């Protein structure tokens, strides 16, 4: 079967706008999580905000200033534009393209800000049209200027963007499309910041994934898209090939709506499936960009699953969420882009703030590693409801 290749990427997160800014921020080993600037919340919790307000985001991409929009849409447009530019996709291409985006928050930021006035102001009430996930995807798709052949939205909480990658790859395999632009976009909202807060899984300080004294996660926001493309199409277009997607798996923990199983069954099955699909052995994996949220429960469950997969031959492992915050539905694509940057730059980013090994029994990478040969990297994305997915990217 022909390979699924990655021929373009776009990313925006608290680390900055674009791949170059993202990589520089990773090299600097400095977290972008801090006090909130733009989100109008009374909660005093560290978050990873994209460092631009909505007006500045609009200016970055020339978005019509008077058009009703959401932060999820704006972030998505920025990442999509960068991916399209790198992938050199003209608006009049003859290639069949699917746009598969992930979100859960959608336009909740604008609904929570304006819903008190919905019944008195018909204009403001139109924000309701932008609340649901699909409305955000359709609005992001307009940024392209050309016409996508198929558009859909995945919403499986924190594994959403990884599942977008999986759907895109399956569509290319079955020759429904030549190119699938896959990923996710998610802005911070009071709704989910408060929601996570009621679950008591937010750290009041900077998160410390896999640390014995970890206290929870920090939320973040952002968007990232990958251009997946069939080998045939990429060669026809003579476009730069970044890497290949060699395998992926999706499984359900089926344990609890918001808790992960202690034996990590869902994460284990997802990683196992990804390895099987890629025809790789566990020892072939050089680096795992872990889901690693920093909650007691996730890291223990993921740690158990990693041990079940890798045994005593653990690869290099780090969670980059201490850099960006947990970007929920966009995390899967943001961290896939980071994983691919690592693969291409022989670089392994630090798991910031890790100090003390926990009973999970392994230590993540504590400081950035340079000139580390990487052939295969794995990215894990696990979500509420036990929606667990894993993707493997390999050198091409």
């Amino acid at each position, binding site marked *: 079967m022909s390979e699924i290749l990655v021929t373009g990427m776009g990313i925006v997160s608290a680390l900055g706008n674009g791949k170059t800014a993202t990589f520089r921020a990773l090299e600097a080993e400095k977290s972008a999580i801090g006090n909130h600037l733009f989100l109008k919340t009374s909660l005093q919790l560290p978050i990873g905000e994209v460092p631009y307000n909505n007006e500045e985001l609009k200016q970055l991409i020339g978005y019509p200033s008077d058009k009703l929009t959401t932060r999820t849409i704006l972030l998505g447009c920025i990442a999509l534009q960068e991916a399209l530019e790198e992938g050199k996709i003209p608006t009049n291409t003859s290639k069949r393209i699917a746009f598969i985006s992930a979100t859960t928050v959608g336009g909740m930021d604008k609904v929570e800000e304006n819903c008190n006035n919905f019944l008195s102001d018909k204009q403001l009430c139109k924000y309701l049209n932008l609340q649901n*996930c*699909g409305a955000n995807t359709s609005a992001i798709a307009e940024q392209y200027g050309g016409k996508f052949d198929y*558009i859909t939205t995945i*919403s499986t*909480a924190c594994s959403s963007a990884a599942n977008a990658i999986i759907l895109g790859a399956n569509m290319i395999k079955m020759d429904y499309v030549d190119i699938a632009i896959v990923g996710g976009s998610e802005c911070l909202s009071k709704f989910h910041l408060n929601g996570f807060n009621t*679950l008591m899984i937010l750290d009041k300080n900077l998160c410390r994934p896999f640390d014995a004294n970890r206290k929870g996660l920090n939320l973040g926001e952002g968007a990232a898209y990958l251009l997946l493309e069939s080998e045939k199409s990429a060669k026809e277009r003579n476009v730069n090939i970044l890497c290949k997607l060699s395998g992926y798996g999706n499984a*359900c923990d089926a344990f609890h*709506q918001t808790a992960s199983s202690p034996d990590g069954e869902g994460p284990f099955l997802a990683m196992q499936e990804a390895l099987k699909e890629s025809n790789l052995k566990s020892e072939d994996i050089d680096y795992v960009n872990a889901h690693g949220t920093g909650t007691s429960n996730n890291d223990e469950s993921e740690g158990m699953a990693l041990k079940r997969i890798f045994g005593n031959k653990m690869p290099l492992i780090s969670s980059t969420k201490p850099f960006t915050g947990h970007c929920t539905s966009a995390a899967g694509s943001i961290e896939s882009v980071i994983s691919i940057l690592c693969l291409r730059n022989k670089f392994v980013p630090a798991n910031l703030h890790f100090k003390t090994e926990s009973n999970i029994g392994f230590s993540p990478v504590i400081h950035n590693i340079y000139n580390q040969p990487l052939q295969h990297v794995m990215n894990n994305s696990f979500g509420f409801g036990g929606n667990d997915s894993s993707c493997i990217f390999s050198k091409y």
Partner: protein
Amino acid sequence: MSVYIQSIKQISFQKPLCEQWLEQAVFVNANYNEAKDPDFKPYFSPIEARRMGKLIKRAIATSSEATKEAGLKNVDSIVVGSGFGCLENTEKFLLAMIEQGEQNLQPTPFIQSTYNTIASQIAIYMKNHCYNSTYSQQGLSFESALFDTFLQIQLHKINNSLVGAHEEMPPTFFKWFQQLGTCKDEPIDVAILKQGKSRGSIFGNCAVSMVISNQNNDKTICKIQSMKLFHQPDDKDFYKNLNAILTEANLQLEDISAVILSYNGDCENDHFCNHYANTFFSSLPILWYKHLFGESLSASSFGVYVGAKCLQYQKIPQHLFYKNEQTINHPKNILVHNHFKNQDHSLILLSC
């Protein structure tokens, strides 16, 4: 690779978990109708039932019945489409957060507010660790979920899949949608709804679960010949997709017994339905179903349900005809078209 519908179960404002609407449909004079729920006791303990929202109960009841009717103990995949997800709990958490100024909030409504709560609760109920996903693409959420299953079967990754479509409409969101104009202001009689002269439709809850399989056996209701999902078509694109779906099934347009369209009584929507009916299907009987099941972002799942049941029972009741009514003794092929604001489109061809 052929794909078959093995079972479909629904909860709506028709009699639940059965096809009484074929003979004795409920016609409402309303702009919103709560679903008629079955007895949920067979599915949950009282403690479980207290913790679950109605949408989840309906999703689990229809999933459980569909799996049973398909003769399966479990399935290889669970995929749900939902345009708004668990809106009742979303509303609860949102309003509490605003009224209480981000203080003293309860976690339960948040936990049960995410879109994927539905598919994951079904998985927990069925103890199913298989592929699990959730699609939320406005009026094509259901088709997105069905398409995922189509792909997985074609890729030989699964033999069967439970595909669901679930929506609810809590009171405050209902008022907001009335303000937006997507729901009628006043109750409306079906005959007037059909004229499609004013803005807005009638809302209903949606719970449809079906088992899709690569096996044609004694459980099979009908075959899904093919499905096409496309975006912003002009008439040329529409024709291309229509032609492709017929060609793949080796059929001509005149082999189609009836076309099910997404008429909902909203002039802005029906205007497009009329265009497609007149341009592409002028000689064929046109059916509708939203007068029986109400509008929701997953309502098109009722379109497939209605088409499949007409093929299974080999009859098309008179109350389904929108126009070009004919006596159809043995329906053989039914085409279901859906569109959302003329942006996203689907064509699904069912055959017995």
